[in-house]
């Protein structure tokens, strides 16, 4: 047993050297002052909480992430259900199709949305042809809607896969028992399938919500003048003014929020058990 544990050492080494150590270096930076001789200070954290607009942006980012997560659940659940319980063949093909977009860069995908969503672009012209919109202007690009659409596209595969795995484990005989006892399909879903697949939904929600909080590429490229989120503030600190100290402090505030929300969600999960 002890020797098997040793096998973990390369992975642990990589994790420690390239994730944990840099994390503590950033934590150290977040407590440094910008003065010529860097001193320990809480200034960076105080600055964040004393400026109203940073908190406003944080709240905006949280709202955006919640919306993205909810949309992901709504579109991923039926898909995962059909894959797990309805169809027999072609599951692997669908899974492959879901995973393929992962192989292209996030930046490329954001730029594809730029072409697809713009006024007079591919989608606008198509909708105009079939008579759904009167002009070829949609007014979606360069609003927060565009950023949300792109984020849903990027993160919903996590949701599909986790819900699919939860449903796949669900014993069919339980569903049949419910049916044979006279439950209507809706009742079966509400009282049997949904509660049993909840761990999958919650895991999926964590996998979508958390990276969404830190996203900056999609809001920056697609969100227009209202594309500012907490991720773009951090990006600007690092790339525009080399404000590592303040940038690290914001990043750690974000990390604290992530840990809190994950803690909350795992409480939800434990309650299930």
């Amino acid at each position, binding site marked *: 047993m002890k020797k098997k544990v040793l096998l973990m050492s*390369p992975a642990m080494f990589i994790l420690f050297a390239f994730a944990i150590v840099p994390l503590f270096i950033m934590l150290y930076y977040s407590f440094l002052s910008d003065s010529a001789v860097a001193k320990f200070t809480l200034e960076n954290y105080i600055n964040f909480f004393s400026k109203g607009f940073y908190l*406003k942006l944080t709240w905006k980012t949280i709202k955006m992430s919640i919306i993205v997560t909810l949309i992901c659940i709504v579109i991923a659940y039926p898909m995962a259900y059909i894959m797990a319980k309805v169809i027999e063949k072609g599951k692997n093909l669908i899974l492959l199709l879901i995973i393929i977009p992962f192989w292209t860069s996030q930046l490329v995908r954001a730029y594809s949305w730029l072409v697809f969503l713009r006024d*007079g672009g591919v989608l606008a012209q198509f909708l105009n042809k079939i008579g759904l919109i009167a002009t070829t202007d949609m007014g979606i690009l360069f609003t927060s809607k565009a950023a949300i659409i792109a984020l849903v596209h990027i993160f919903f595969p996590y949701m599909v896969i986790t819900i699919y795995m939860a449903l796949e484990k669900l014993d069919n005989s339980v569903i049949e028992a419910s049916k044979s006892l006279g439950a209507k399909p809706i009742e079966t879903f509400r009282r049997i399938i949904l509660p049993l697949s909840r761990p999958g939904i919650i895991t999926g929600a964590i996998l979508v919500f958390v990276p969404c909080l830190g996203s900056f590429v999609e809001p920056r490229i697609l969100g227009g003048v209202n594309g500012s989120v907490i991720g773009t*503030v951090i990006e*600007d600190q690092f790339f525009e*003014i080399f404000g590592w100290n303040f940038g690290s402090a914001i990043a750690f505030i974000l990390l604290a929020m992530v840990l809190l929300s994950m803690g909350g969600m795992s409480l939800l999960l434990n309650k299930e058990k």
Partner: protein
Amino acid sequence: MSIGKTLKRIIAAILVLSMMMALTACGGGKEQGSNQENNTSEGEKTKLVVVNWKDYGSDDPRVIKYFEQQYNCEIVHEYMASEEELLTKLRTGGLGKYDVVLPNASILPVAIDEGLFEEVDTSKLENYQYIFDKFSTLPENKKDGKIYAVPWVWGSTAIAYNNELVDEEIDSINVLWDEKYKGMIAFRDDFNDAIMTAAIALGQDPSNPSDLNAIKQKLIEQKPLNRTYWKTGDEWSKLFANKQIAVGMMWSGQAATMKKAGEPVTFVVPKEGAIGWVDYWGVVKDAPNKDMAYKFIDYMISKEFQLQWTVSGGPAPVNSEAVNALDKETINEMNIGEDSLNKLYFIEYHGEDVKKQWNELWQEVKAQ
């Protein structure tokens, strides 16, 4: 012990070994690289080491060939990806290694203060006398009345518009605040450009704005009029080509390139003024080949080089003779004449505190 366990032990050993080999291989590679560098430096010709941006005038093969034949030397380019990187290069082992480098106002005062540059003896530069007067008044390349870097090329961030969509002659910066173009404007997402532009529109000194609150209000007022903020030149080109924007802030260099490609773009330096930038050549402290460095800079600011680069799409020349060699129409169209030049407010060096303050102001505008 079972065979399974032995196997696992072997795999673990292989993993650890291969990781160690990967690490040592990296180190070894580096060593070999620096050895090679040393070998080439033992050539009999004078070697001039230049640090510049890639594809930025001095590394044009024709230019290098001409200069190398003229002065029997060898030019070696090293490239930088940012001004900060250049500063780091100079601070960490660059002295005594590089001869000529290309800083701008964002790092020059710091670098001069730290003694990273040689004082420039302008009497050794034949072409120095032809440089526009405006440049002699800029503070960034001087310290205690001594000159430490030679202006090379300049450009501006001003207004460009689509002359097919806009049927008036634009000559004011207030077009960016014009309700008529609501939804067709593209302001730049850059704290320095944003604050300087708003200061120019408000009649404040763009380098030392007196009322930052008014600037914030002015920028917030401008915000809803945009289609979007742009960051990279590529974003601007796409918005322009798709007719999603009619007017916006733009760089002189890119506007010239777009015009050359046949786009219906007009570039103006508005009457209130616009943002300007300068790239300077500096001789690095303890440069191995100072004499050759002077010859190189003298060639870089010569009429023949500057004219040739400008007409083939380069930035604006500092050499007045090079500009005068062009006809009036071209000068106006390219906004490289002395009248355009004198309208510019050149980006000045700001300390960390000012940068932080400006960046925060811009974040606040964007967060509204």
